[in-house]
């Protein structure tokens, strides 16, 4: 970096540092005051009660695909970085639902380290273990049992080829992660006879097709047959106690965003220091499979606290050298499961290129697996899949974590490794030695990225500290320079230089009035001057106290979106009274619910920028959309239909497009009737795939348009503005269904908005110039938005045109293949019933009454143009994803190609609405006894060059006993 650049970066950094420190400690939106009286806070306040949080499952397959190809979550911007959150002013993580400072703050005794998360509730050995559930499939055979004390446990085993490997890894790593501060379930090493296991009444066995059946004793024998067995004939296993503090399991947590139903989850996970630092801990313990599926959220009810969600790490059987069923593959921890750079490198290397890790020496100890330290590089270690907070880690995050790691002495490490109770002392020694050396490498690496001063204290009139790099022998003793300044806490600004030498607190500082602050910036000789530590000291009645620490490193330029994007002028003041009134009701409701007294304008200012622009754009469009009936009589404005605002959904990283940039509102009781009577709003097709829970769609003319999606009660609705057409085929490729479709800030959406509804001002553009908004189809495009990575479905045999195809799925596949892959448009056209011409006429903008030849020609052109736009996929798998409807009225038909497209059976009344030229009736009431068998649909999401686009439904019917497309529509 050029010198002037660095100087500028340092200057910028220093300026911003003081602002950022104000928000470093959890929320705080730009308050000028830097420190509060209770800083530094050590634990989070008592959590708010979590009301009935829903159970949310995740899929390993989908998560692997998503993290490999989509990289969800907010990443570090360029230029600048976002500092870690969820910390106090000292940079330490607060004790709470995510993390509890343990060994790093106050050393645990060896006994406490060995005990881990608890040893008081080990499985009782006085009675039988009553098996409740058994799963013998896959690589993870497991037994759930209840002991004599009614405690529930999950029992897991070692593979026969590697006794003690996986269970040892679980024992060791669970204790390390507990000592490091994470919540982990209690884990016990157990040795038992087969006779210990007895059947509980109604115990279940999970079959190889994932169903449950009654458990028999021989099922237990079969599970135990291939697992490792001790020489004395007994079994060794780990028992994970299922937390039962009055709580329940609510599924894994994601490494980005926050849970929308947890009031205490207010820091985006990708910016949590405890999750960023987890990278260092994972590298130390070789936890390569750290992903959401190795986490779990529990609702717990600790004494004196309301029920709330606590976040756990669990399942450490694949840590250290264990790959669970065999030794961990050598690439784990060195290469990601898929990485473009490593792939190119290894392809080009032609087997001759062999990085050091490939040649690493591992011991011939089955209990160890593949763990070593000689080729371990903390900086290049990698988990198997991308983890957002890992990618966001900064030098102060890794310093925080390295400091925790270095807190473990050799003796501590050996004590924890002993808990694995390896029968071979060589295994115990190898693992302990490896962890000691890996610890040292972590310290040496991360203590060189910042000035590693720690242990700050005021002794007499002197500021004392420890240089961790010197303490651990990573560097020779060095001299330090201290620069003292006054600090104006109210303004958040440093004051005048008061003395510039020595750690002795200057007289001006000692004489400071109670409540005054000073700061000391420390640098060390021989290292980059941009690498420094700023210590903040408060004068208080009982003496001086260190209240804040901030670390610099060269090139650090902090960006905090909450600071950068806050407008200087509150947009609320510019809203018309009607729009203010609607928001006032919302703000008032929030105040009542929260027991606060926050003025509406302040409430509006507190919204995120995307929430502000979403509210502004949608209410602006609603207010300027006048409604009239067929006779031209006024029905009021669209805004008048809204009586209450329930929620503003702004940008939410990682969520699908139909959940972002919209208002959830309560409508007038007659709103549905008014929409149906209005000439301006057109009844759209039922929402069966997107807008889950809001099936009825009303759309205002052409784009940009307002879409009301009403729930069955007719009172709840979500409203958004679509800036991209929803008409097929354009909507398949134009970003409709991506979040940018409704984000007024994206592309030229604001200009379109102003053209359609006059008087709209893109007031954020000057403020947000450095901020790039989403303009293309990034992120998930609907619930299924990923590029396909599944195995390609083979092309079907090229059937002659007009050959009778009995099965609908075959006909769909043949049609799509003819159209998109073989590009035989004539054969594809033979699948189209004559009535499709009306849809085509609508798509290409010609008269529906045109001659049949003209319509046929237009159909061919449309097929060809659409195929050209779609690209040149080689298989249907490349070209599309299946789309699964949420609506229970639509039946999903299983078929052989459901990896490419979905086939559904629709009620006749619903299918008829999708026919070409059919206008959905203004009043559509679903039948309580729907009939099926007439209309079928093929649902797919377009994928072009690996990027998901819009969704298409092809309506199929039997015409003269042949399957034919009778209509098509873009899904909205």
């Amino acid at each position: 970096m050029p010198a002037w650049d660095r100087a500028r970066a340092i200057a910028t950094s220093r300026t911003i540092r003081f602002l950022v420190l104000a928000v470093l400690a959890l929320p705080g939106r730009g308050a000028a005051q830097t420190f509060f009286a209770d800083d530094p806070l050590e634990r989070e306040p008592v959590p708010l009660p979590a009301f009935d949080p829903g159970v949310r499952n995740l899929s390993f397959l989908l998560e692997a695909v998503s993290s490999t190809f989509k990289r969800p979550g907010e990443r570090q911007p360029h230029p600048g970085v976002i500092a870690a959150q969820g910390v106090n002013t000292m940079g330490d993580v607060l004790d709470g639902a995510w993390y509890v400072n343990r060994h790093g703050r106050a050393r645990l005794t060896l006994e406490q380290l060995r005990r881990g998360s608890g040893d008081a509730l080990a499985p009782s050995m006085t009675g039988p273990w009553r098996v409740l559930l058994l799963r013998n499939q896959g690589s993870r055979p497991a037994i759930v049992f209840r002991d004599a004390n009614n405690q529930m446990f999950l029992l897991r085993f070692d593979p026969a080829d590697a006794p003690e490997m996986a269970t040892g890894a679980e024992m060791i790593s669970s204790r390390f992660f507990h000592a490091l501060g994470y919540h982990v379930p209690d884990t016990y090493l157990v040795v038992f006879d087969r006779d210990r296991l007895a059947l509980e009444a109604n115990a279940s066995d999970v079959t190889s097709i994932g169903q449950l059946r009654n458990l028999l004793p021989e099922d237990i024998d079969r599970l135990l047959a291939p697992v490792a067995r001790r020489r004395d004939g007994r079994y060794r296993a780990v028992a994970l106690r299922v937390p039962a503090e009055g709580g329940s399991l609510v599924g894994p947590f994601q490494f980005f965003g926050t849970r929308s139903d947890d009031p205490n989850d207010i820091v985006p996970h990708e910016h949590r220091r405890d999750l960023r630092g987890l990278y260092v801990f994972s590298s130390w313990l070789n936890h390569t499979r750290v992903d959401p599926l190795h986490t779990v959220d529990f609702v717990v009810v600790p004494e004196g606290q309301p029920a709330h969600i606590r976040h756990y790490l669990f399942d450490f059987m694949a840590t250290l050298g264990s790959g669970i069923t065999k030794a961990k593959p050598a690439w784990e921890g060195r290469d990601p499961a898929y990485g473009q750079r490593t792939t190119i490198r290894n392809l080009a290397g032609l087997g001759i290129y062999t990085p050091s890790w490939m040649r690493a020496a591992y011991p011939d100890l089955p209990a160890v697996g593949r763990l070593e330290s000689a080729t371990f590089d903390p900086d290049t270690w990698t988990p198997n899949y991308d983890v957002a907070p890992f990618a966001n880690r900064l030098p102060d995050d890794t310093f925080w974590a390295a400091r925790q790691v270095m807190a473990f002495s050799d003796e501590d490490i050996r004590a924890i490794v002993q808990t694995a109770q390896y029968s071979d002392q060589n295994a115990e020694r190898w693992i302990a030695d490896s962890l000691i050396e890996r610890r040292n490498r972590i310290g040496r690496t991360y203590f060189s990225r910042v000035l590693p001063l720690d242990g700050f204290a005021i002794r007499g009139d002197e500021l004392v500290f420890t240089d961790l790099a010197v303490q651990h022998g990573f560097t020779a003793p060095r001299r330090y320079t201290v620069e003292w300044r006054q600090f104006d806490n109210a303004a958040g600004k440093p004051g005048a230089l008061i003395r510039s030498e020595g750690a002795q607190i200057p007289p001006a500082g000692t004489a400071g009035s109670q409540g005054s602050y000073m700061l000391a910036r420390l640098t060390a000789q021989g290292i980059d001057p941009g690498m420094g530590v700023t210590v903040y000291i408060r004068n208080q009645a009982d003496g001086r106290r260190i209240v804040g620490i901030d670390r610099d490193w060269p090139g650090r330029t902090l960006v905090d979106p909450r600071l950068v994007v806050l407008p200087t002028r509150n947009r609320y003041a510019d809203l018309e009274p009607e729009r203010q009134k609607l928001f006032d009701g919302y703000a008032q409701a929030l105040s009542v619910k929260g027991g606060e007294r926050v003025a509406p304008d302040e409430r509006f200012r507190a919204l995120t920028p995307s929430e502000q622009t979403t509210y502004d754009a949608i209410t602006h469009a609603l207010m300027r959309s006048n409604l009239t009936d067929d006779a031209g009589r006024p029905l009021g404005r669209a805004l008048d239909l809204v009586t209450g605002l329930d929620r503003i959904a702004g940008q939410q990283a990682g969520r699908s497009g139909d959940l972002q940039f919209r208002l959830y509102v309560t409508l007038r009781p007659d709103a549905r009737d008014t929409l149906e009577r209005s000439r301006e709003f057109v009844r759209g097709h039922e929402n069966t795939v997107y807008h889950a829970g809001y099936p009825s769609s009303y759309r205002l003319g052409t784009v940009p348009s307002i879409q009301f999606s009403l729930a069955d009660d007719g009172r709840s609705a979500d409203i958004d503005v679509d800036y991209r057409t929803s008409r097929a085929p354009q909507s398949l490729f134009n970003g409709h269904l991506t979040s940018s479709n409704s984000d007024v800030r994206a592309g030229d959406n604001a200009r379109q908005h102003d053209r359609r509804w006059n008087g709209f001002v893109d007031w954020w553009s000057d403020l947000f110039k450095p901020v790039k908004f989403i303009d293309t189809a990034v992120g998930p495009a609907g619930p299924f938005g990923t590029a396909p990575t599944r195995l390609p479905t083979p092309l079907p045999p090229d059937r002659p045109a007009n050959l009778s195809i009995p099965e609908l799925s075959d006909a769909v596949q043949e049609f799509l293949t003819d159209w998109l892959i073989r590009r035989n448009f004539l054969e594809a056209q033979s699948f189209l019933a004559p009535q499709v011409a009306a849809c085509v006429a609508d798509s290409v903008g010609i008269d529906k009454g045109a001659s049949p030849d003209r319509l046929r020609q237009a159909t061919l052109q449309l097929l060809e143009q659409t195929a050209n736009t779609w690209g040149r996929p080689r298989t249907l798998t490349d070209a599309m994803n299946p789309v699964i409807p949420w609506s229970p009225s639509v039946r999903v038909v299983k078929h052989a190609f459901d990896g490419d497209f979905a086939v559904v059976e629709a009620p006749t009344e619903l299918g008829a609405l999708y026919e070409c030229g059919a206008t959905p009736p203004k009043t559509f009431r679903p039948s309580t006894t729907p009939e099926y068998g007439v209309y079928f649909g093929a649902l797919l999401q377009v994928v072009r060059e690996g990027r998901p686009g819009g969704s298409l439904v092809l309506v199929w019917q039997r015409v003269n006993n042949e399957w034919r497309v009778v209509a098509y529509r873009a899904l909205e």
Partner: protein
Amino acid sequence: MHDPAPLSRASRWVWAVTLVMLVCGRSIASAQDVTTRAEEIERERRQKQVTLWPEREDPLVARANGLLDRGLGEGIQSGAGNNGWQVVLSGTRANQGQAFGIGYRRSDLLRDTLTARAAVAGTLAGALVVSGEAELNRLRRSPDTFVTLYAKYERSPRMEFYGLGRDSSVDDRTRYLLNTLSGEVRAGYRFTRNLNVGVEFLGGGAHTGPTSGQDVPSIETIFDATTAPGLFDDTTFLGYGGFAGYDTRDVPRGPRSGGFYGINFTRYVDLTGGRYTNRQLELEGQHFLPYFNATRVVALFARARFAYTGRDDRVIPFYLLPKLGGNFDLRGFGPYRFHDNNAFMAAVEHRWYVFSGLEMALFVDAGKTVSDKGEIHLSGLNYSGGVGFRARVNDAVVLRFDVARSREGLRWIWSMSDISRRRF
């Protein structure tokens, strides 16, 4: 305020939260009144609390998890596929084109002791295979005993024949139709985890016929019943034999360590006159030598197959003769390139890691077919070599792409099976 009309789930949830807050909520300082960090955090939480929204589960999650519940992971490793309906992409004989079909598999029958699978697949070239299989993994009183029943109908219109012997000319390439219907029962015993020994009984019929292909002449245009014994002479046969295998490979599809060594003996009894009664002996060895922590593997393969008639008045039908050439041995030569009474081959592959889902390989194959056992020596071998890619999912090779070259040209191979697949 809302009227009591029914509300959507989200609204009900939000209002329930509101109700709880109204009952349980306690006042905190307003934004202007915040004087402590704790209050600031509480204020942020309150702000979130009033805008809580239920989490939504992606509808694909249940489907993806369902696939794993139905044994997708294990099915990929074993090659048997998931339980339930399957897309079938292999199963036809070599050179019939890419197969497409469907199958249905259940491994949970009789409390996971019986696995049954039925499949039908075809190719654009008109090949068809219909198969059914039932495998009893263990008997009640003998858990190490296994019994497999297998029945199959195959129609293979693009079988190829170049004449007998290693000197057969590539210019004599012809095609024929082979239809077979066969049934087989194999019963064995697992002496250890790696060693199993068993017997087999089989029966069926074979039909050969001409083809109408225009690019390659039909077999009868060049060969007759003398040069292609058994041509157009339908046979029905019974058979019996035995097998033994010692398998220490780490994974069955694309192993990186261990080996497989096996022997298989079968006697075919011609029920239509005895002219085609013969015996066949197969020997196979595979060994995998990993180095650099299994990021490199040297794979060694050797196979031999010997056919005997035992009497001068008997012949071995040309379609039952040992063969070389194709996707698994002498890969630079076309499928079924060499036929004769005896065939043997060896191959060496050097494989290296690219990423967890891909390996590359360099390979050399050598082998020949001979009519007399006295000609079994290393002179006059046919050679081929090439480079390949192997795609791995869940540690199993699921796709193989090889480019092989021999004196007869370049061949591009696309296969769903690794070369290490077991033949018996």
